[in-house]
Structures are given as C-alpha cells and as structure tokens.
C-alpha cells in the first residue's frame, strides 16, 4: 500500500511537467506582450524594455522555462502582473475559500445523492424513482450560474433570508453551497441508482434475502458496500467538475476564491497568475484522483496494488 502510494505520487510528476510545459509554451506563443500590459499605455519604449528584462522575457524560451521550473521547485510561481504580489501568496489567500465551498458542496451532495440513489434503486419504476431520476436529469441540464441567480432572486431579493454574495458568516455559505452541489447531487444520485440496481440483481443478494436477513441489512451491508466503488469514482471525478463549477459559482456570489482569481487573471491577461492558478488546480485534481484510488483499497479489499 505504502509502495503503491509512492509509485502513484511519482507517476503524477510527468503529467505535471507536461502540463507546465504545455501551459508555458502556449502562453508565450500567443499575441499580446505581457510587458506591454504590465507597463500600461503611458510607458515609454525604454520602460517596456526594462520590464521585459526584469521579467526575463528577453531570454530564449528554453532558458525562461528552465528558470520557471527551478522556481517552481521551491513553490515560487513569480509575481502577478496585475497586483505585483507573489502569485503563491494570492493563491494561498484564496485557496481555503474555494476548499471550504468544495467541501461543503461535496458533503451536501453525498448526503442527498447517495440516499436518493439508493431509494430509487430499491424501488425502481415507482413514483419515488421517477422523482429522483427527473430531479437528477434537471440537475445535470441546469446551468449552475443560472440556478445561483435564481436562488438569489428567491432567498435574497424576495424573502431576504440570506445574503446575495460575499463571505463572512455561515449564512454566506448556504447559497453557494447549494448551487455548487446541485450538479454533483444529480451525478451521484444517477450513479448510485445504476450501481445499486446492478448489485441488487446479483445472486448473493437473493441468497442474503432468502436466508431471512432484514431488508435493511441486505441493502446497507450487502448491496451498498459492493455498489460503492463506482460511486466513489463519481464523487472523485465530480470533485474536478466542482472546481470548474466553482469558477461560475464564485462569480455569481462574489466569493473570493480560486475560480474568481482565474477569471480575473484571464480578463486582465495576467500571465503569471493564470499559469500559477491553473497549475495549482491541475495539481489539486491529480491529488484528489490519487486519494480516490487509495480509498478503493479500504472499501474493496479485493483490490491489490502490485
């Protein structure tokens, strides 16, 4: 297990290097001079040249990449072209906010999605099932940012129960969490339903029932445990789309997280910031996938890693 963890950790390095290389080359191959953006419209050609030298943009591209990577090794992602603050500092300031939102959303999604999926699978083609299936279809088809806005209209504008945006109290967390979770709940419910239905048709479930076990025991102990693997996969994969959804949700609710940071950087053509935040997002996603793989081992003792 330990060896497997180490090996998986090492195997993510080439992917990360590949991503950094791709990002680096593409960002530089494009029109638009970052030095020009940084200097502003009033700058003289000498000023622009000075900034270019300061940023190291006058050097050959492979030298620039080597420097970028050696700084990356000590978690130095350069300075933001917009605010002049170190990129890493800005990311650290916002990462906890996104992490909070992602955690509350995935927790809510599991708490709602898994039971809903189980109920739908236990009573297939009944009203409950149709209700769960249609709700999850709606959830998948609904643009999260629109749902967010509609929640604001209902709960902030009309009822005035919850704040429309910002950060601070627990009340600020409610609407963004519900918005972000909506999409994931739908996916988890769908996957739980289909996974449970498959397991429930297995012979060992019939055996468990015929030896007189309580239905509750059959469902939870015999069926759910076996249905969990695909459910965990979906939860893990959804964490990624959660990061994507966070970009939109954070914009709707003016939530100062990573997603908003990326969008602002794109709008301002702040290259070091774009590069850094996308790299960190990629790293997070890879880490989550790794954790999901490790959780498999606990849930399913049949899996061995050699």
């Amino acid at each position, binding site marked *: 297990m330990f060896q497997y963890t180490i090996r998986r950790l090492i195997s993510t390095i080439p992917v990360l290097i590949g991503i950094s290389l791709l990002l680096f080359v593409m960002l530089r191959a494009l029109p638009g001079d970052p030095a020009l953006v940084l200097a502003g419209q009033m700058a003289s050609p000498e000023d622009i040249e000075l900034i270019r030298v300061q940023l190291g943009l006058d050097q050959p591209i492979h030298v620039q990449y080597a420097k970028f990577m050696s700084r990356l090794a000590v978690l130095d992602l350069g300075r933001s072209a917009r605010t002049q603050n170190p990129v890493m500092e800005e990311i650290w300031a916002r990462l906890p906010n996104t992490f909070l939102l992602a955690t509350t959303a995935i927790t809510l999604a599991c708490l709602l999605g898994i039971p809903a999926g189980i109920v739908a699978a236990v009573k297939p083609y009944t009203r409950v099932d149709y209700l769960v299936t249609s709700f999850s279809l709606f959830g998948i088809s609904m643009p999260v940012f*629109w749902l967010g806005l*509609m929640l604001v209209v209902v709960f902030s504008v009309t009822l005035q129960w919850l704040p429309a945006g910002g950060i601070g109290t627990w009340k600020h967390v409610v609407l963004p969490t519900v918005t972000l979770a909506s999409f994931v709940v739908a996916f988890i419910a769908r996957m739980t339903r289909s996974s449970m239905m498959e397991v429930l048709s297995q012979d060992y479930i019939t055996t468990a029932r015929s030896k007189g076990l309580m239905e509750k025991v059959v469902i939870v102990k015999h069926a759910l445990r076996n249905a969990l693997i695909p459910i965990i*996969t979906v939860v893990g994969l959804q964490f990624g789309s959660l990061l994507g959804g966070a970009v939109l949700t954070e914009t709707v609710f003016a939530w100062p997280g990573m997603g908003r940071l990326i969008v602002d950087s794109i709008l301002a053509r702040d290259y070091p910031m774009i590069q850094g935040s996308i790299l960190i997002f990629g790293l997070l996603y890879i880490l989550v996938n790794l954790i999901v793989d490790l959780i498999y081992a606990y849930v399913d003792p049949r899996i061995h890693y050699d």
Partner: protein
Amino acid sequence: MAFPSSKEELRKEKMQDSDRQPNGTKGASESQFRKGLAKLLRNRMAVFGGILILGYLVTALLAPVLYPGNPSAPNLMRSLERPSLEHPLGTDELGRSILGRVIYGSRVSLMISIGVVCVGLLVGVPLGLVSGYYGGKVDFILQRITDMLLAFPGFLLALALVAILGVGINNTVISIGISMVPIYIRLVRGCVLSVREQVYVEAARAVGTRDLKILKRHILPNVMVPIIVQTSLGMGTAILFAAGLGFLGIGVQPPTPEWGAMLGSGRGYIFNSPHVATFPGIAIFLAVLGFNLLGDGLRDALDPRSKI
C-alpha cells in the same frame, strides 16, 4: 490479473463490458439500427427531448421570421421593461427585446455546439482509431497527451484554452472543442481495442485488405453507436460550457445575442429586474435537457449495456 487494480483499469473494464456484440456485416448492423430507432421512438422522454431540439432548430432557422427586428439594436428609452404584450419577455438594460435575443441566441448556441462536436469528432475519432488500431508508440504518446488533457476537468480545460487563445465566438468553439477531444479519443480507442481482435478483422487483414479500408469499413461502423450517444450528450455539454464562458465575459462578446452573456449582463440587474436573467437561463436549460434526454434515449435504445 484477477481484479481491477486501478481506476483506469476499472474504466477500461467497464468499456469492454459495454461493448455490443459487434457485427461484421453491414446488413445486420443496419437492421439492428432500425430496431434501435423503433425502440427510441417508443421512449417518451427521448421523443420529448427530440421535440425540444427540433423546436430549437426551427427557431434558429426561422429567427428572422419569428423576430423581424434587429435583436442587437439598443433602444435606451425602453430599458429594463417588465414582460408586456409588445415584449413578451421584457427588455434588457439597453432596451432590446429579450424574446428576440433569446430567439437569435438559439442560432448562436446551436452553431457553437455543432462546431464544438465537429472539432471533437474530426480530431478525436481519427486519433482514437489510430491509437487503438496501431497500438505501440503512437498509442503510448497519444494516451499520455490524453492523460494530460484529462488531468483538467472539462470546463477548466476550456477556460484555460480561452485564456490562451482569447475571447470570441471562434475561440469559444475551438477551446470547448479541444476540451472534448480527449473524451472521444478514449471512447473510440476503448471500442477499437475490443473490435480489433475480432475474427472478421483478422480475416480482412489475412486477405490483404489495406489498413485504411479495414478502419473505415470494419472498425468504424462498430464504434458508431457510442460515438452517436456521446455526440448527443456532447451537444448539451457544449451549450452549457459556451454559456458558462459567455457568462464569465470570456466567451461570445456583446452585442452578439448569446444566452450565457445575456445572463452575465442580467446579473447586474437581478435585484430590480430579475426577468433579464431568468429567460436566457430557461432557454439554456431546455436545450441542454433536450440533448441529454435524447442522448440517454439513444444509449438505452442502441447500446443498452453501456453505462456512460
């Protein structure tokens, strides 16, 4: 190997599991297709999805008839009006009819989603075919690149590409299209791997049929079903992604009527004029719902064992 030892293998297993019994002869697959179509037409939800999409197609084609005016011409005297007889969905902050913009927006959104799946299909399917059929080094390199692209969740990948390419309608199509390429590569490759070892492919090879012909005549028809299903679902995703980018202000730019961008600008008036943001959202929701319903129905009808 007794049990799947990683998520990747699990996924692969699922893919093989989902493979239909491949048909070597064209006639058999055609009759099977007809059977699938009949099954699709019996599925009420799928038919409903199809009708929704048809509705959008007609709206997009007949946009100038349905709304004769210019949907982008501002009329500041009548900004932010609530729904009325003259403007059934009200007007936006520049006094433009929201109904007109939603109607013309269906053109933009459908065009984008068609463009996106074209990019995905034209790049992803050939690469998936080559990767699965030839294997070896080509396969290895292609799969590592796919790994890299899949290391980002779809929307983030599209976002990153827009950051690189810049805003606008063409770059929106290219960015979202590229973000779909790895999905097609994986899907097609997985199917090819299982078809490649079939006896009829071996027979074709034995009588000296050229690779290109084998790929075209024997392998492609057998991977068509998952491609069709993925394309229907992909159209919905493309609309969602494009709307998301438009909403963030980094997709289609004003004054082009695009649903996401309309929502983005309507967001500023949510307190006093919530109708500005309401209707474009409904338009997005119903379009995506239509493609998802149709995609689900297609999968149930043509590919009942698959679980994608």
